[in-house]
């Protein structure tokens, strides 16, 4: 029993690291594609990891008047939540038949932890720019979370009331992808937009807003804490497209060539995210809120009703 427990733990740690590697590759793809769009050459393949290693070697600065421990440990907590979410999702993909801790509600909650940690860290820094960034980040969460949850409820409805990620994958293997229906297509685009906002990419990089807030929530971070935030974001960049593949596109099968097929699905989503990011200007926070709570939520409700009618 104890041995089995330790093996489980090791398995989860390995999965989390694998997701991190996937995230680093994705991050490189992102930067390379962005560069090509802007008619630049782009960085070499090891650039994302090199950036993180460089940050780890840098000095750590803490602003005076900051809640020092909270400021320094918030990124660690964010990373912990992220790693757990990554491990659970990866586990559900590798062994969908084991229902063990693979639950879509749990995942939704865990994916909020990095954002909360960042907000609390920003708030502890005592920097007014960071505080403004924190408030924007929280409003942005509220904005995208509503349509995002409605889409997840739609998926749950379509797969016959199951919260297990493994069951969602297996139902799609039997009945076809959730994507192949009107509600599925609408849901796909809403999840894509939410992923954009969750990742803090243009047009929803409002909390960081380089030009006005100088990084916003991460203004005061430097050195190793910033490296941890980077790692967290990198993992998120891999987890969100994977979650979309799982919910709507039949997951990833780990047998022979199916892995490549799974990676292709993943790649399509990543490229879409990168394209949106490079072809849009940043919106204001009130515009983003109105956008998510207005048309996007309306669309997601339509998707839910369509799913109810079996479309």
């Amino acid at each position, binding site marked *: 029993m104890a041995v089995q427990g330790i093996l*489980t*733990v090791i398995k*989860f*740690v390995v999965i989390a690291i694998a997701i991190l590697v996937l995230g680093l590759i994705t991050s490189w793809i992102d930067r390379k594609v962005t560069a090509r769009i802007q008619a630049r050459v782009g960085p070499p393949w090891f650039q994302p990891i090199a950036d993180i290693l460089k940050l*780890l*070697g840098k*000095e*750590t*600065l*803490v*602003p*005076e*008047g900051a*809640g*020092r421990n909270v400021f*320094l440990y918030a*990124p*660690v907590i964010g990373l912990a*939540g992220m790693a757990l979410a990554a491990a659970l999702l990866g586990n559900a993909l590798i062994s969908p038949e084991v229902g*063990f*801790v*693979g*639950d879509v*509600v*749990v995942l*939704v*909650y865990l994916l*909020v*932890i990095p954002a*909360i940690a960042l*907000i*609390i860290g920003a*708030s*502890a820094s*005592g*920097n*007014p*720019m960071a*505080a403004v960034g924190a*408030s924007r980040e*929280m*409003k942005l*969460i*509220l904005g995208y*979370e*509503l349509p995002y*949850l409605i889409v997840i*409820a739609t998926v*749950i*409805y379509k797969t016959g*009331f199951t919260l*297990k990620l493994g069951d969602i994958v297996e139902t799609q293997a039997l009945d076809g992808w959730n994507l192949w229906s009107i509600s599925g297509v609408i849901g796909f685009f809403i999840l894509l937009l939410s992923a954009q906002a969750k990742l803090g990419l243009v047009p929803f990089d409002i909390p960081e807003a380089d030009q006005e807030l*100088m990084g916003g929530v991460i203004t*005061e971070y430097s050195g*190793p*804490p910033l*490296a941890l935030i980077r790692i967290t974001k990198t993992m998120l960049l891999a987890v969100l497209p994977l979650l979309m593949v799982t919910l709507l596109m039949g997951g990833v099968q780990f047998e022979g060539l199916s892995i490549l097929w799974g990676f292709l699905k993943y790649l399509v989503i990543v490229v879409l995210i990168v394209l949106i990011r490079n072809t849009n200007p940043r919106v204001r*926070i*009130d515009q983003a809120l*109105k956008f998510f709570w207005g048309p996007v939520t309306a669309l997601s409700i339509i998707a839910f009703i369509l799913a109810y009618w079996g479309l």
Partner: protein
Amino acid sequence: MNILFYPIIIPLVAGAVILVVPKALKELIALVGTIAAAYYAWLIFIGGKGMHASYIWFVMDQFPFAAELRADTLSGFVLFAAAVFALLIVIYSIGFMKDGERLKEYYVYLLLTIGAAAAAILADNLVLLLISWEVTTMLLFLMITIGEKTAKDSAGKTFVMIGFSDCSLLLGIILLWWMLGTLRISDIDSVPITSGALTAVYVLLLIGALVKAGAMPGHSWIPKAAEGAPTSVMAFLPASLDKLLGIYLLARISLNMFILTSHLKLLLLIIGGVTIILAVMFALVQHDLKKLLAYHAVSQVGYMVMGIGTGVPIGVIGGLFHMLNNAIYKCCLFLGAGAVEKRTGTTDLENLGGLAKMMPVTFIASLVSALAISGVPPLNGFVSKWLIYQGTIEIGQPIFLLAAMFGSALTLASFIKVIHSVFLGEKSEKLEEIKPEGAAMAIPMVILAVLCILLGVFAQYPLMHVFGPIVGLRFNGVPGAIDLSRAMWSPTLATILIIIALVIGWIIYILSTATKVRTTTIFVGGEKFDTESLRYPGTGFYETIRDMIPLKTLYEDAEKGVYDLYVLGGKYGLKIIEVFRSMHNGVVSTYIAFAMIGLGFLVIYLVR
């Protein structure tokens, strides 16, 4: 005397003793009284199946005036929880109320409340339940008046609203007696609600339970009470004890006495969903810490009502577990607010900030409970909410899953605001040097915060051994899903993984240079830095949401009291009264005409 009488009588006696002994002894006696009550409550809790006791005072016309008591798994557990909260509040009050006025009264009311609450929980007779229920209402009124000068209004509104619900409880009990011919709770076992009259009975009892617990639309007394009442009273009654009592009665009537129809279940689900979302929307824009917490005290009731409304074992367990969890973290949050109020003299979010360094214990305890109430895994709030979600999925109602989960996100948002404006952020210059909170205030908060963590990480044990047997009142067998060691959410494993991740993060810090930090000034792009003018208090966090078009109307209406039954009742009640008032126009001939008409009806009735 039977052990069931002890937790009722000991606090009552202790309360009476405080009135006669010298002032200096009041804390000691309150402490002894609550410890003894908690001890006997514990014995009842662990001994807890099918204990009965009765003391017959006299019999009048076959109707026995008797104190009939009964303990089962549900009441034993609720009683123990209530007694523990009373004990923690007494410890806290030693620090918090130190130089308050009317202290003797305060401790007397506190002890009497726990005695009356114990009687309400253990009562096997609806009349005894009603009487002790009303005694707690009256004591709540008295305890609120101890607070600030504005407390009179708060106390009045509270008394009117709960008094109204008690009245509905009384009507329900009368109707029940007329329908079923018995008032003994253990005799009313799983009565199917078949007729309209039984539905009326259930709804009347439901109003009694829900207004006490503070579900919408009977919620508005809680924010009002928060304006005036001492914070320790808020932590004791609306945050923990009234929740326990209200949800206890709800569980008793819904699980034990009646079998709900699907319409009534839907009613509960809707009340739950609406309460969660609306109350938390109001909480989001509050500027006063106590009022903000009060709206959360309303919002969380929604989860419990929803859980019980699902009517499936896993949802019901979630609802009841949430009752306990909510009492724990909400009590802790109010105690934290009280400590802040005590040390800074204000609960206005605008004027607080940066207290984390001065009051570290309050900060950590409040942070843990704030994360727990937002349902962040692996804390206790997450487990109970998760069980409720499972319940809504099991009955095929993802729409309520949505309401509950989005409510959870809004809860998180409003606590981010609290944490930022009170504990982090920039300190307001209006604040002087702040002393730490002191042991008497710190101990209860630490205990509650630790409970938040333990009940989350080791959730399987209370679920299997306490809440499983409780749902046995209605359902055969305990659902396998609550055996969390094999279920989809394994809190212990998740915690191990989180700890591993934390250790890895920490090692990265050690290996790099993060432990040797350099302190710099805040970076604002090279501008000259003026602390006070650049301060960004959390009160501005959600202005954007407040100003959004459909929501703006909601908030403006709320300020006008459109969602407040008390205000509405006052408005329309006055209209009705004006009709009667205009009849009394002071003209003798009008009164003679009324008398003649009345006489006419009387003659017709008698002669016919």
